């Protein structure tokens, strides 16, 4: 029999609802937990393991002691539950290290200001408060280390004057940015070499504002982790961008310097760099140079993660179609304009997961400073355990330290996911 191939639809088929097993709770369970035999077995096993772990952990944590005087006392009361008393006794040390107790308000205030200062950076809606983010680094340094208010402010004053000088040069006299920049640089240098010191002296006499000085070796605990971590994150990001651009540059010298730097830093363990910072650097610097240990560590950590950052961003740059460069060039945008307006926004967006990954890695790597005997939380844990009263305690301390790190890292991860959702423009 011959098949009839001609066909004309006479009646439209209206769209109808999907079957009940595909939607709602049942649909979700079927799709996600019981989609096949293997999946169902894995689901049941996972639930079993979670229950087993929580079965032990919850009574251990929930029944824990908070107010004993030593580990011995805890064990005498009930050896099967947690002994959180070590946290009760030593939490201040975990947060502030050896920072003088009467000055605890300073790191605390610095931390609260930090939360305020990052808001304009994280949420463009509050960008009008960005001035605070600019003031913050100086404010934080002054609050943490103390000393004269003016010796920090003078840095801001000098840089502002330099910038104003540069701008007014460009507005009135010069069109050449390079010459204006060199002149402004000289102006700023003269200011810092000859004018700033007498000026600070004068201001100290007229209006003495100062805080007691706290030396770097007293910094410790999470204060130290945050100092190193936040500074490292903030500084390594722009350096990473420049290195990534430099690595793609057509100028052979710049390219070679960037490639050499990145490959060298990536090829060396962070611990080695930290040892260089803590021990070797002093041999190379002229005797008597007082080069702050925390600053040295921050520089090393920054350079280390800048190299990784550069590679992550290079990945993002490579992910952009050539057409984007061509389109922005064909519109007459200059190299820097097109980098800033077209290329970087997209490359950075592609690299968000990698960038945040590097940030999180950097933040956790700050615990390595315990190796060069700085007192970060992990270093302090050893110190605390060396105390006879708490000798033998492991879980409680490390769980608490881990939890603190987790909160920060999880926060960063959540923000990165929020950012990815927000910047999604294709749907």
């Amino acid at each position, binding site marked *: 029999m011959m098949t009839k191939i001609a066909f004309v639809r006479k009646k439209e088929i209206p769209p109808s609802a999907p079957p009940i097993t595909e939607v709602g709770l049942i649909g979700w369970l079927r799709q996600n937990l019981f989609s096949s035999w293997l999946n169902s077995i894995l689901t049941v096993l996972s639930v079993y393991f979670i229950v087993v772990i929580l079965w032990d952990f919850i009574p251990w944590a929930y029944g824990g002691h908070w107010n004993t005087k030593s580990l011995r006392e805890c064990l005498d009361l009930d050896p099967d539950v947690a002994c959180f008393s070590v946290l009760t006794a030593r939490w201040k040390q975990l947060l502030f290290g050896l920072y003088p107790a009467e000055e605890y308000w300073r790191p605390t205030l610095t931390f609260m200001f930090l939360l305020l200062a990052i808001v304009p950076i994280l949420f463009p809606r509050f960008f009008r408060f960005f001035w605070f983010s600019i003031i913050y680094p100086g404010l934080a340094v002054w609050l943490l280390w103390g000393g004269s208010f003016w010796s920090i402010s003078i840095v801001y004053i000098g840089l502002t004057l330099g910038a104003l000088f540069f701008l007014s040069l460009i507005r009135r006299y010069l069109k050449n940015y390079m010459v204006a920049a060199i002149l402004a640089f000289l102006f700023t240098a003269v200011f810092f070499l000859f004018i700033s010191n007498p000026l600070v002296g004068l201001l100290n006499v007229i209006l003495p504002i100062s805080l007691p000085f706290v030396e770097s070796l007293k910094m410790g605990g999470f204060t130290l982790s945050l100092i190193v971590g936040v500074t490292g994150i903030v500084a390594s990001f722009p350096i990473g961008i420049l290195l990534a651009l430099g690595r793609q540059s057509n100028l052979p010298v710049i390219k070679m310097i960037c490639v050499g730097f990145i490959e060298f830093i990536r090829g060396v363990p962070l611990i080695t760099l930290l040892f260089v910072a803590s021990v070797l650097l002093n041999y190379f610097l002229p005797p008597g140079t007082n080069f702050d240990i925390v600053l040295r560590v921050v520089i090393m950590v920054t350079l280390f993660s800048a190299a990784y950052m550069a590679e992550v961003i290079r990945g993002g740059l490579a992910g952009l179609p050539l057409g984007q460069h061509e389109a922005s060039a*064909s519109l007459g945008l200059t190299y820097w*304009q097109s980098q800033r307006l077209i290329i970087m926004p997209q490359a950075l967006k592609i690299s968000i997961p990698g960038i945040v990954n590097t940030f999180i890695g950097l933040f956790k790597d700050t615990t390595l400073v315990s190796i060069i005997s700085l007192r970060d939380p992990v270093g302090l844990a050893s110190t605390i355990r060396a105390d006879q009263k708490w000798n033998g305690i492991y879980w409680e301390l490390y769980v608490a330290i881990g939890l603190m790190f987790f909160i920060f890292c999880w926060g960063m991860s959540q923000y990165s996911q929020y950012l990815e959702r927000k910047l999604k423009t294709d749907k």
Partner: protein
Amino acid sequence: MEKTKINITDEVAIHISDMNKWFGNFHVLRDINLEVRRGERIVVCGPSGSGKSTLIRCINRLEEHQKGSIIVDGTELTTDLKNIDKIRSEVGMVFQHFNLFPHLTTLENCTLAPMWVRETPEKEATEIAMEMLEKVKIPEQAHKYPGQLSGGQQQRVAIARSLCMKPRIMLFDEVTSALDPEMIKEVLDTMIQLAEEGMTMICVTHEMGFARQVADRVIFMDDGQIVEQNEPEEFFKKPKSDRTKLFLSQILGH
């Protein structure tokens, strides 16, 4: 439709003489001589690999030529970055794959270059952009992102984006090749409209209907050389070179 014969002037818009280009050892453009007058509409065709895209990409220095000279609007293309940026801001280009900026809305795509290159105030740039988006008939998509538009719409936005710079010359590089058949017409209509307004245009395309309708001159390229050029009527009816005949039979044959 009657072709509008308007305002081709004697003024030279683009002057290319003895231009040569190599990709490594590959001699991609050979002794190109071409003079385009203001208001002229030129269609460049030829088999793939014939160098036609490279030719128009040399005109705004997306590719660098190694010998000969290219003078655009009285300015010679040299390694001087200032000249290059100046020429690029005078010469609009539309690409096969649109190359819209996906992180900016349609409107922002259009206002970006005027604001940063021409330093047009935002309000004025927005007005120009809306005017151009209306011209390409998609003002209602102004606040959408390129990823939310169809291919034809994206290509029209790309045209509008170039027009916002008020270019004196437009280059079209196979702008309909990546489009679904039902979207080709809307883009061609926009280009025809531009042609009728007297824009100086060089179009690399295989749309022979378009060439017949708007071109003042059709150039056929093969192996990096200009093989034949003529008015469209003559070009299609009585091609002189065998290579042209073969090419035309291949693309018009079915």
